[in-house]
């Protein structure tokens, strides 16, 4: 029997494709809600269409999350609700372990699901009416609470991996922040991409790219922290076979950064030819960013297993 990394003797939990896509959609769900809220907080009425795209995206991604998680349970899928309710004979009650991210996450997903649903419904009804359904102040208070939950949903998956004894995952504190930053840049990319179907939202595009630039910079910093911490723990050799995925993730980050720069310039230059280029740029940049979001999670998940 050969044991590679001296300090880890664990078995792999075999969290594979369902979990990878769950992490991806959780990042987009939480990230979109947070970005949409930030757009609303700008106080600029013309940001509202882009914000509503964000709330729609968030709901769709949120709906996919429990489906993927339940599918991952295999033949025990009918017991998904055991996450919330302890069915131990004679000791039935609510399950909530604040020290277990999976337990907190199950509740987080449930409560965030409520916020995602209400905000998307509000956006839809307001779209149909042509005027806001709820007074803006109330809406913003609700959105801020939802955004905090969204930030939790986008980040706790990284903390969950770290709260284990797996090589790589448990050797770094960076995963929560890393998944959050990448979820936020993925969300801006997706909202930007969907603006094709809602032209009036394009007003926010340039600033969305600028925000994506900040999120990408954060992500890059955290990727460096990840490699430094994992390197210090001596488990870097487990990461190396997945360098191609890391390259894709970094390409996504680079796309986010380049996109932000490009848009600053285009914004200043103006003109319709420039705008047409923006469209094409946005598609390419957004797709690269989204592939990067997925690749980052795949690289992290697979390196321990």
């Amino acid at each position, binding site marked *: 029997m050969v044991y590679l990394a001296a300090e880890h*003797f*664990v078995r792999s939990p*075999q*969290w594979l494709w369902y979990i990878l896509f769950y992490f991806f959609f959780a990042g987009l769900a939480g990230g979109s809600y947070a970005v949409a809220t930030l757009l609303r907080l700008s106080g600029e009425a013309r940001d509202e269409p882009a914000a509503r795209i964000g709330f729609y995206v968030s709901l769709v991604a949120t709906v996919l999350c429990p489906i993927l998680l339940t599918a991952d349970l295999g033949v025990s899928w009918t017991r998904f609700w055991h996450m919330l309710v*302890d069915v*131990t004979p004679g000791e039935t009650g609510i399950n909530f372990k604040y020290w277990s*991210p999976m337990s907190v996450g199950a509740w987080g997903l449930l409560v965030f699901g409520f916020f995602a649903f209400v905000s998307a419904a509000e956006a839809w009804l307001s779209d149909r009416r042509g005027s806001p359904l709820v007074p803006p102040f109330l809406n913003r208070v609700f959105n801020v609470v939802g955004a905090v939950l969204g930030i939790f949903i986008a*980040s706790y998956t990284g903390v969950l991996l770290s709260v284990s004894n797996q090589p790589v995952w*448990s050797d770094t504190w960076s995963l929560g922040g890393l998944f959050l930053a990448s979820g936020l840049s993925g969300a801006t990319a997706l909202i930007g991409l969907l603006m094709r179907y809602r032209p009036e939202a394009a007003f926010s595009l340039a600033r969305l790219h600028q925000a994506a630039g900040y999120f990408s910079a954060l992500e890059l910093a955290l990727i460096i922290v990840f490699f430094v911490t994992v390197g210090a723990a001596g488990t870097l050799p487990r990461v190396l076979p997945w360098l191609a995925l890391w390259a894709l993730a970094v390409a996504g980050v680079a796309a986010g950064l380049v996109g932000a720069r490009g848009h600053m310039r285009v914004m200043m230059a103006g003109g319709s030819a420039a705008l047409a280029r923006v469209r094409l740029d946005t598609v390419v940049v957004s797709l690269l960013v989204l592939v990067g979001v997925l690749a980052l999670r795949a690289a992290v998940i697979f390196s321990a297993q």
Partner: protein
Amino acid sequence: MPTIKAGEEYGFFTDTSVCIGCKACEVACKEWNQLEGNNPTFLADSFDNTGDLDAQNWRHVKFIEHVPDQSATTGDGTAWLMMSDVCKHCKHASCMEVCPTGAIIRTEFNTVFIQQDVCNGCRNCIAACPYGVIGMNQQTGTAHKCTLCYDRLQGGLEPACAKACPTQSIQFGPLADLQQAADVRLATLHSQGQTQAQLYGRDDKVYGGLNAFFLLMDKPETYGLPNADNAKLPSRNDLGGYVGAAITAVLAIVGGLIAFRRRGMG
């Protein structure tokens, strides 16, 4: 064998210095617990043909074959080590700490037990157990591991592996008795010049103490066991993980607010 009483602490003392690698424990465990075993494969790299602890192997005799070039002296067990591995029934159990469903409980015998009707197969315990003990049973969709023969204890019987072990490498009993027996055995080995012999999990240095603890003839790492410095609970990363995420969140929000601030455009 004293009568087994609920409310008392029980465990295993596995003395690897007398293990002969016969695998009677593996067989007895499978028989009692009706484990079918994995499909036979011939690993051909060792006398260990079992591989790992998993859903079908709740006892696993590890063979550590560091055979030196010069022949070992008679009775010098360091060249060829055998160890019947098992769930350690940790005092501070990583598996129990993370389990979101409450399926993992401490029994009236102070052992760690996975309730099959509560577990939903999330596999968080597998990610957490530092000893690679737990495996998924694909038929039931639940996590499986050594129960320390919970059903036998309830019926006043000692666990099947301890009963079957022909060399008393596996000893079962009240924890305090086992600890005493281990101290005596360690002293004997030391007096015979076997200074490398050491107890693992006898005191609280690893996971607050192990109900299934060992006498080893080499460093814990040689047997694939984390040493006291590396034996850490998953929750050690809770705070750091959330703080890292929170700092990122604050920076991202500031970035977002700067990017989206109203600039009187258009």
